């Protein structure tokens, strides 16, 4: 049997022009979360509890796209989702469409531990959250100035932006994108029509 191990991520697909200072901020947050998880593992916390602890920390920091700092819908609101899974018995919990739950990963954990289901979404999930007494906040809590600006750029480029930040320099790259995207909405680099049947 090997020892313990932990990995964290903050999203794939990084703006190649991300300023060094932002890169440093991201590395500091990742390091802080790793250290949080390492000290929990050294205190013999079970893996499932360490995962919830670390993801809560990542959700509470606005730097990455989750919890506070989440990407915005076309309506400028936040709809969050999360899931958690415990290997030994393959137990799992998932939530979608959350708008007021401060830490979605903890509600996913409650779906796993306190409900007969494995996935709850939208109004039902919010009702379950109220019954479980988890921390609820106004949707505004999750919205950051930066993401309001990025939603504006995404709308101008008429595109759905994947899990990366659009270049903060100039709009020419986006306008180029806009031109190519003008034809049809792109998803996964393919015309959205590819997905229409699905």
């Amino acid at each position, binding site marked *: *049997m*090997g*020892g*313990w*191990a*932990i*990995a*964290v*991520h*903050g*999203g*794939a697909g*990084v703006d*190649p022009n*991300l300023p060094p200072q932002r*890169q440093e901020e*991201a*590395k500091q947050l*990742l390091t802080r*979360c*790793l250290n949080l998880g*390492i000290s929990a*593992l050294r205190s*013999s*916390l079970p*893996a499932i509890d*360490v*995962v919830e602890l670390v*993801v809560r920390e990542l*959700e509470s920091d606005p730097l*990455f796209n989750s919890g506070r*700092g*989440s*990407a*915005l*819908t*076309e309506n400028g609101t936040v*709809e*969050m*989702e999360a*899931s*958690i*899974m415990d*290997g030994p018995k393959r137990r*799992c919990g*998932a939530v*979608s*469409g959350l708008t007021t739950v401060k830490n979605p990963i903890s509600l*996913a954990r409650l779906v796993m531990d306190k409900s007969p289901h494995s*996935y709850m*979404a939208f109004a039902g999930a919010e009702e379950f959250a109220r019954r479980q007494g988890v921390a609820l906040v106004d949707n505004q809590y999750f919205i950051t100035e930066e993401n309001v600006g990025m*939603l504006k750029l995404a709308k101008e480029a008429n595109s*759905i*932006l*994947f*899990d*990366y930040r659009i270049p903060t320099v100039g709009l020419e790259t986006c306008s180029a994108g806009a031109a190519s995207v003008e034809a049809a909405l792109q998803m*996964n*680099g*393919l015309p959205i029509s590819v997905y229409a049947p699905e």
Partner: protein
Amino acid sequence: TVGCVVVDGQGRCAAGTSTGGLMNKMSGRIGDSPLIGAGTYAGELCGVSCTGEGEAIIRGTLSRDVAAVMEYKGLGLQEAVDFVIKERLDEGMAGMIAVSRNGEVAYGFNTTGMFRGCATEDGFMEVGIWE
């Protein structure tokens, strides 16, 4: 999207993923993060969390496939991650982190960079963004 995968001192694996989804997404859109077997999976052998283009991750059942190729093809953890990133994404762009019950840690991505950090009990620790 954020994620964490852990194996504890007793070899138990766990995985978690949380996200706001895609900027400018349609209201009601569900991505890969809440879908067990797509964005998140943990079993006896490993724990996996994915990020990137949700629709591609869903179609590739990416996180379950890492566990499946370990179980049925006998691949090691990093081999399994590399195989799935290379063979299961079609034109999609994504990244993932993974741990095994033997205390290994691995990651892979075909995007421009991925924010990630990993550490093991024997003292290894790495935080990175680019290749």
